[in-house]
């Protein structure tokens, strides 16, 4: 047993050396004014200010950007979620399935889909959709909504999102930040980023 522990420790040291030398992909820089493709989809964005793209990829269709780290401001793009698929990667398809987007999902139900996904994924109960309004996203008819919730770390967070369903696929951008200070501070940057998101 001791031998095997030593072996594992040696492997860990080797792995950290590889990471330190830049051998594993890390976060990326998203420079203002350049055009970037989102999650290999038809969604493109030209950020009006510099952002960071995180290497954490919440799901096949999703990509996360931030200014100060995902705990302080998290912008997640959902680039064309297919019918029958969840918004983010399921921890276990069998044991912990997530709600699925479907062909029958109406635009008005997208906030509920996000709510149920957050609740099931983060295992939280307190979540309230505060406003749901019609609005454009990607130059098409869509929904703008806002919400607040008590996150898994017991920190109250607020969020705002825009979504649109195009050719039976769900395109969405969400912004989540702590209710205290950070949400208000970055909200205008998020809105500018959402305005700059297009579909090709």
């Amino acid at each position, binding site marked *: 047993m*001791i031998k095997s522990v030593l072996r594992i420790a040696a492997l860990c040291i080797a792995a950290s050396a590889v990471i330190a030398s830049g051998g594993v992909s890390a976060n990326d820089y998203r420079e203002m004014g350049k055009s970037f493709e989102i999650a290999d989809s038809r969604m493109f964005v030209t950020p009006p200010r510099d952002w960071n793209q995180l290497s954490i990829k919440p799901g096949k269709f999703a990509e996360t950007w931030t200014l100060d780290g995902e705990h302080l401001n998290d912008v997640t793009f959902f680039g064309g979620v297919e019918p029958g698929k969840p918004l983010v990667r399921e921890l276990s398809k069998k044991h912990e399935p997530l709600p699925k987007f479907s062909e029958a999902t*109406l635009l008005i139900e997208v*906030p509920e889909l996000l709510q149920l996904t957050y609740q099931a994924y983060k295992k939280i109960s307190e979540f309230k959709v505060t406003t749901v309004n*019609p609005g454009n996203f990607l130059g098409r008819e869509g929904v703008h909504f806002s919400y607040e919730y008590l996150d898994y770390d017991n920190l109250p967070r607020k969020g705002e999102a825009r979504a649109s369903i195009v050719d039976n696929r769900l395109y969405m951008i969400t912004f989540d930040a702590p209710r205290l200070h950070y949400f208000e501070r970055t909200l205008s940057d998020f809105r500018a980023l959402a305005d700059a998101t297009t579909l090709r």
Partner: protein
Amino acid sequence: MIMRRALIAFLGTALLASAAAGAPKQKTSPAPVPPPYAGHYQPQGIDEIGIWREDDERERALANSSQVIRDEALNGYVRSVLCKTVGEDRCSSVRIYILRVPLFNASMSPNGTMRVFSGLLLRTTSEAELAAVLGHEFGHFEQRHTLAQFKAARKGTDLLSWAAVFTAMAGTNQAYRNFDNLQISVYGGLMRFGRDQELEADLLGLGYLNGSELRPQAASRVWRNLILEVEASAAARGLKKPKFDNVSFFASHPPEGERADYLYDLAAPDSEGRDEGADRHAEVLKPWIAQFLNDQIALNDFGASEFLINRLGERGWTADLWRARGDLFRGRGHPRDHMNAADFYGKAVSLDPTLADAFRGLGLSLIKTGRVSEGKIALQAYLRLSPNAPDASMVNLTLSSIGGR
């Protein structure tokens, strides 16, 4: 050579010690009523004083948590059930915190902090069922199980640390093999120690119930219902039927099947005719059922949620139950689910024509099943009942996109 012999002797003693730690407790039937309460207990010795101090810190954070449901009536009710079960003197040493967590659980920590999850309140159908779980948790507290577990874990890990040193000194393959065996034995012993504590708490819990006015046979039903719920959950997810009679190596609790059986045996036989307090329980929980069900549905566990809704429906279907069932089916969203959801919402609004959320669900489900004009009428009713709903303008847009407001 002397060192090696000493090591073998040391390991042998250790194995015996760890086996002794897991000696099973006796189940006597029926469970005896516990002796009079010894009075307010204060921690003794540095271990226990330290554990209580840490626990006081946790309680301070807990008292400020937004997860705590502070409703006076609900808190008063849960306290009254605990007091009925364990008696007023024991009950006065407990602070109860009801947490909005949709899981089947309750816990009690060394300083007298009791956490009751909202999921437990949703799953129990009578005072006696709730009392069975609260009594069990109080049993852990009264027997100071956390302290005993802490000491056992420290003893076990101390032993393993020394054994690791001696093993390295001996350096032979046999010593490493012995060390591996010892490790398995110590960890197995610790888990078994935990299971024995559960058994002891069950015994005490039933003892309290036997001595109370409530029907102790309800304790067994709590576990039977949990088994049925877990089976329903697994079936809906297409998983293998879970086994409830196996004890796995790392199990912290006795298997549910065994528990249901011995809890029934522990109940006093002459108590069959006692009241369970099902009506009182239902009455107090009535205003909470809708919210607790919403939290349950959000777990995305279709089988378990459907099982719980149906079981609550056995007492009589209410508008809230039909609405929740509608939400459950609409949330899953299979094409066949929308038909069922529309049916359930329809039943909800016929029982309570002021239930705005049910009209919303009804409207959306009907639109999805192609009954657009009926759906429109339902959504209009939703707007009439809830003109300031957060999604009112979106509903208006939906109405206009399907032809008229």
